[in-house]
């Protein structure tokens, strides 16, 4: 079956521009997560969705970052006024429930801010 997909796979942008990253979770998975992985670093939690609501946004690094999920499916992570320190791989994961379930990751979007 289809796994988690993310688009674009790579994004190069100029400092100060806005970017949108998209995640298509596995069909039927109610929980969706965004993580960020900087070069040589571990994965850093950003935000969690259960259905269309986000009960945990504690990992968003600043108010330039926002995310939404519609129809209990597709999610978009938006970064406004990008900075060079935003350069990283942004990973999306989904799971069938939120209670201790395995998470299934997409391939990630590699963001480079010049």
């Amino acid at each position, binding site marked *: 079956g289809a796994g988690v997909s993310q688009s674009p796979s790579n994004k190069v942008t100029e400092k100060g521009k806005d970017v949108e990253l998209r995640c298509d979770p596995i069909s039927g998975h109610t929980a969706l997560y965004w993580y960020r992985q900087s070069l040589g*670093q*571990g*994965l850093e*939690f950003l935000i*969690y969705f259960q259905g269309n609501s986000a009960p945990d946004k504690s990992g968003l690094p600043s108010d330039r970052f926002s995310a939404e999920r519609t129809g209990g499916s597709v999610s978009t992570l938006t970064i406004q006024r990008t900075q060079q320190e935003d350069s990283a791989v942004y990973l999306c*994961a989904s799971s069938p429930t939120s209670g201790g379930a395995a998470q299934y990751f997409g391939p*990630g979007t590699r963001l480079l801010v010049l």
Partner: protein
Amino acid sequence: SQKIEQNSEALNIQEGKTATLTCNYTNYSPAYLQWYRQDPGRGPVFLLLIRENEKEKRKERLKVTFDTTLKQSLFHITASQPADSATYLCAFTPSGGYNKLIFGAGTRLAVHP
């Protein structure tokens, strides 16, 4: 502060040997612990999950242990193969953490023929 530590040095072993990777945590009360494999340029792939009330879990050549007294998890790959070469990540779900995962930095394993 909450912290997860994995051996940052790469682990090099001979094919056929058992690889043992370590994950230590401080200031957590984890409800679940998971191990993932990550290959270069790819997203992590789930391997095993163990709950706080479980001591050991096995799946084929993989075994994970969870010691809440030592605040440590060990991940073993028996009869290792060159195809097992990858970075292995441990991750915790804090109690009440909505399955949010807190990841270690990962340990790179290289299995040599």
